[in-house]
């Protein structure tokens, strides 16, 4: 099936519309619908009355349109109002969780990229004994999967008394990321050194050269790493799950999972759940709208040699 569709499509690469081309577009549209539909369904459900969902579950438009689900997960509706629309009375104190996610993802990403930049500069521009050996050793860390370090890291954070704290959430990944260091080092090696040399001859310090010449020239890759890192941290679930039992430091993803589990097994508040999910995904959707093109290109760019 695969090959026949592609084959017939291939034939008319730059020719007029053909049957193959029609099939190809049909397939793409189908894939896009499957991709997008759950997002629409989230929105449609989130704008429905939860009781309405049981009477008219198949309606493609919101049933009994209301902003109630958003209001009740944000804690803006009174318990009575929430119950009247099928809510459980449980709320998601979204402001706090967004703040937590911002701190977690923001600080962790910043540290990770910042320290990777320092290390990459040291590995690519500075001369010191044992440099290549150290780089080689750090590079082996690419082979260590999260699964191996997860439990011992939890034990370590617990021993340090840092569970339920931002420090405990952020520390393990903040200082060292083999991939970021490698990526930036390669990029720095490719940058022309003429301006740097000139600045050094003029008496600028190496640190100044790093921050005033190298970092601005590498702003593209640095921003790319920051975006990818931020997405990663924002969506992270496993580590917060074991570290942050306290709502005061729980990121949004974890809070959403807890919210889901707190909703009743029988006749859950689906409308409220969808409103919460949508709000949890919203920052990523905004990031996507602003940086979509860069994300698409950088993902592809990360894959090819």
């Amino acid at each position, binding site marked *: 099936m695969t090959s026949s*569709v*592609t*084959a017939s*499509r291939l*034939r008319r*690469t730059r020719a007029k519309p053909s049957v193959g*081309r029609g099939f*190809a577009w049909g*397939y*793409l549209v189908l894939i*896009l619908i*499957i*991709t997008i539909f759950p997002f629409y*369904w989230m929105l449609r459900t989130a704008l429905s009355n939860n009781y309405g969902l049981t009477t008219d579950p198949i309606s493609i438009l919101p049933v009994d349109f209301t902003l109630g689900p958003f209001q009740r997960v944000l804690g803006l509706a009174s318990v009575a109002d929430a119950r009247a629309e099928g809510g459980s009375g449980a709320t998601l104190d979204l402001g706090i969780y967004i703040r937590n996610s911002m701190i977690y993802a923001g600080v962790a990403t910043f540290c990770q990229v910042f320290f990777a930049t*320092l*290390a990459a500069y*040291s590995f690519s521009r*500075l001369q*010191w004994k044992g440099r290549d050996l150290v780089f080689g050793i*750090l590079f082996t860390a690419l082979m260590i*999967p*999260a*699964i*191996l*370090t997860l*439990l*011992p890291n939890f*034990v370590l954070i*617990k021993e340090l008394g840092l569970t339920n704290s931002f420090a405990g959430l952020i*520390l393990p990944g903040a*200082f060292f990321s*083999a*991939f970021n260091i490698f990526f930036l080092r*390669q*990029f720095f090696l*490719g940058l*022309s*050194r003429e301006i740097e*040399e000139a600045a050094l*001859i003029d008496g600028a310090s*190496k640190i100044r050269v790093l921050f005033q010449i190298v970092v601005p020239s590498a702003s593209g890759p640095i921003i790319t790493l920051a975006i990818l890192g931020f997405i*990663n941290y924002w*969506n*992270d679930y*496993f580590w917060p799950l*074991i570290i942050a039992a306290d709502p005061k430091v729980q990121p949004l*993803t974890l809070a959403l999972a807890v919210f*889901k589990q707190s909703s009743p097994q029988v006749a859950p508040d*689906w409308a409220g759940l969808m409103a919460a999910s949508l709000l949890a*995904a919203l920052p*990523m*959707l905004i990031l*996507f709208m602003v940086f*979509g093109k860069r*994300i698409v*290109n950088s*993902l592809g760019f990360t*894959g*090819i*040699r």
Partner: protein
Amino acid sequence: MTTQLEANKPAGARTRGSKDRSKNRKGAAPTRVTSAANRSDWKLGWLLITPAILGFLVFALYPTLRGIYLSFTDFRVLTPAKWIGLGNYEMLLNDKVFWDSLLTTLYFVFLAVLLGVAISMLTAVILHRVTNSTVIRGLIILPFLISSVVAGVVWSWMLDSQLGIVNLWIESLSGETIRFLSDRAWVIPSLAVITVWKSMGYTTILIFAGLQTIPPQVYEAARTDGANEFQMFRRITLPLLRPITAMVTILTIISAFQVFDIVQVTTKGGPANASNVLQMYIYDKAFGQLDFGYGATMSLALFAMLIVISFTQMRLMRASESDTN
């Protein structure tokens, strides 16, 4: 996701590095002038990598070694670890739940990888031929950007056995409903489909990027020689894409083996352990029953499997060499 990104970015970085390096050669003379001055950089050099080295030692190397040590101990966090030699490994061999869990995981990996790679490949090849639109590629990666928790919550709503839209459609067609996430037979295929939905965009973009590296002249030459499109796909696209296909397959396998978030949010391993994948079981042992020693043992076992699979796969698909060079 972390592992995916980490594992394949160096490859991408290399392109840019080598491309720009030739440009750099023009500036070789000034480099030589100052390289003498560079030699005195050891202080600053070490200062700048100190955070990275600390991070590596404390949160990567130490936990790895400690994980290996813990696998030989009886360790319940609250009391000090007690050396029990191969005790955990013996337990592993006789633990029926572990082996069932391994089978469940393998079944999941098989479905998720087969579906994921096949659909991504088809989508990428078609995209490559029909349109260059960044918007369409952007929309396709949308599920990749949201967290697995959101994906899990949305799909458990859409697959709900009473009110879920998917089931309502199925019911209107066949008159029956399927308990996707609470039927032993359906739960793993359902989880695989959700996983594919979430990750397909990413793999598609990777394959698409690979397709873009194939020079169009190759196709033109083949067309002049009278090759039809199916022949071109089989004789040009597939062989030239082999390194990318191998890489994408390995990445998908590795991340599928570690599936956790979606399972934890939707089924928690149920019904009756039917979706108790390895990572779920490890989590349950370590944090549910506080048996960290055994948890560490299973983590090591999983790691060993991943290494074996990666190497076998690399050999089988000759990932390091494409047929061009």
